[in-house]
């Protein structure tokens, strides 16, 4: 009676390869489409960009291998330097969207009649296309007819041409970018505030915490996940800044508002751009800068997971 039925044993070994390895294989099958797309649309282009950056190529004819020449030229290119600094300004000042968003979220996190309308009004700029935001702000900044100069005129201050002044123009564009970005951070914080534990606030209140101390020691620590996401999207937004620049100044006056992504576009793909290799080299530099942040994001997410 303990003898194994030969037919069962046979059936077991006859079960398909997939059946035998089901548990090991299935996750990979589910991952396969994502991996495939990631390899084709992300990893492969990164490799290609790096490869092209070693060539002198106009996008049409023969590519000529030039080694590190493109990078050597970048080191000596004042327009590249300007773009790099502008990228830094974007990274730094764009972060103002986070405290700005938090402030508005705290302000709106109350129950008065019609609060929903106020909330949606504050959220409104985020829904607008960046092109519209750019247009609205460039009208706002217009040297003669613009609202900004009319308002400044009321206070007796002289007209300023924000977008025509090489030192001010970048800040002008960042300010325009902050408008929708602040709204985005506000939404993140509003949802975060919903999840704040009322018992902890109660406990804090019993211990005599009020105002700033309440905010700093009780509320903000609980908003940490929202802050992290706000930080991530703001950094990404700063590095992706392109449309606003293109709409508001087209990189000008004389190239003083370019950032790396815009400069890359101009060198490689715009009307006069025929330098694929040089553009690719700029893209690689931008990628390396992004890599710093990507590494940081991955690391902090990973340590979060492990901490659980």
């Amino acid at each position, binding site marked *: 009676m303990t003898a194994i039925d030969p037919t069962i044993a046979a059936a077991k070994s006859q079960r398909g390869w997939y059946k035998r390895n089901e548990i090991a294989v299935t996750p990979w099958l589910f991952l396969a489409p994502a991996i495939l797309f990631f390899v084709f649309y992300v990893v492969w282009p990164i490799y290609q960009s790096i490869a092209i950056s070693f060539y002198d190529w106009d996008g*049409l004819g023969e590519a000529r291998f030039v080694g590190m020449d493109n990078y050597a030229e970048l080191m000596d290119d004042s327009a590249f330097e300007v773009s790099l600094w502008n990228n830094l300004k974007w990274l730094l000042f764009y972060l103002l969207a986070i405290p700005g968003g938090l402030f508005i979220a705290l302000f709106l996190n109350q129950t008065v009649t019609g609060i929903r309308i106020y909330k949606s009004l504050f959220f409104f700029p985020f829904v607008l296309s960046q092109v519209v935001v750019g247009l609205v702000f460039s009208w706002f900044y217009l*040297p003669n007819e613009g609202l900004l100069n009319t308002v400044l005129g009321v206070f007796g201050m002289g007209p300023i041409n924000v*977008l025509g002044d090489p030192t001010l123009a970048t800040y002008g564009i960042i300010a325009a970018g902050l408008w929708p970005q602040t709204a985005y951070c506000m939404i993140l914080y509003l949802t975060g505030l919903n999840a704040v534990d009322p018992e902890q606030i109660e406990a804090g209140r019993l211990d005599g915490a009020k105002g700033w101390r309440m905010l700093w020691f009780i509320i903000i620590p609980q908003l940490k996940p929202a802050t992290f996401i706000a930080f991530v999207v703001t950094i990404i937004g700063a590095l992706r800044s392109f449309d606003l620049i293109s709409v508001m100044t087209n990189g*000008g*006056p*004389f190239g003083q508002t370019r950032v790396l992504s815009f400069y890359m576009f101009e060198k490689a793909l715009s009307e006069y*751009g*025929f330098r694929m290799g040089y553009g690719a080299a700029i893209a690689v530099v931008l990628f390396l800068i992004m890599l710093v942040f990507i590494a940081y994001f991955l690391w902090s997410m990973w340590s979060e997971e492990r901490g659980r």
Partner: protein
Amino acid sequence: MRFTTKTMLMALAGSTLLAGTATAELTGDLKIFLDTSNPAPRATMEQMISDFQGLHPDLNIETTIIDRDAYKTQIRNFLTADAPDVATWYAANRMTPFVEAGLFEDVSDLWEEPEIAEALASTKGAMTIDDKQWGVPYTYYQWGIYYRKDIYDELGLSEPANFEEMKSNCQAVIDSGRKCYTIGTKFLWTAGGWFDYLNMRTHGFDFHMDLAQGNVKWTDDRVRETFANWRELIDMGAFVENHQNYSWQESLPFLVNGEAASILKGNFAVAPLREAGLDDDKLDFYQFPTITDGIALAEDAPTDTFHIPAKAQNKEAAREFLRYLVSANVQTEINNGENLGQLPVNSKASVDDDKFLNEGFTMLSENSPGGVAQFFDRDFPAEMANEAMQGLQEFMVFPDNLDDILNRLDKVQERVYQ
């Protein structure tokens, strides 16, 4: 190709008649890509193509019109990947990248045909690279100074003949609380027009072309003289302020509102100015005045062109289309005031009776002994043009940066022309 009864019948007819009609009966598909996206040129081209279709009913013509600015970047893709049979572009150096990459068809054979060789002789140079012709022109237009005649009359000024008069006129305009010239340099190329004229008037056409070909350094003293002349105007306050914020269209209201007295521009500015209410009594034209005595006057007259991509499928039909396009009748028709409002390239075509077209035609045919340039960004290699025009814009805002700008351009020049 849609299969309708009509096309089926036509195909059938075509195949049975094939043996009999060995003459130029064109069949197959003809794909035409156009960058004439503005309303008037668009309608003109569509009409012209449908007339051509009427002559060749068996030909299946497919027309694609692409936004003029987007076209400039898309052409690289479609010439290499999915080439049409005919495509628009620009003359002179703007063709070079595509000619060098072997993407344009050599059409020297067309230029040897007597009708084209004679009638189009004046533009042959602009279509030639390496002694071969790479396309045919279909229209060109003059550049010059368009001014408010009523303002000049009010101030008792007349059209200037030399630089001194130009400056004294300008001073009078400034004293009346206006600006002499409106310009919008946001997209840079408008400043290129000013440099073209100042340089060609200061040192002549040949010197300008030497600079375009990289034989003269930007830090050359003669180039500095050109900039010194320009600076005189800038220091006078001749140009509207904040021009770096405006596109050329946005710079026109200054002229329309009478805040500026004139503009240096191509003839394409006439249409929007007329539309804005400046009739021929208020708007007039004069040739850019002499600066250095004895220098032959030369003009900018950009030429727009048609080409056959090297990868075209139906080159026979494409050639026929080009022949049709440059023929005298078609040239007269498409360039008249109701259509493109520009100058015909065929010498046997007639110029439409329009004040500005007549003046421009006379100027280019009789009073431009020095030569005819295409335009800054068509004569200079693309990369050089781009960097240089940024420098020109910077110079117009901060004239003191000139040394820095010229040194930078020298560096670009070394790389571009190597």
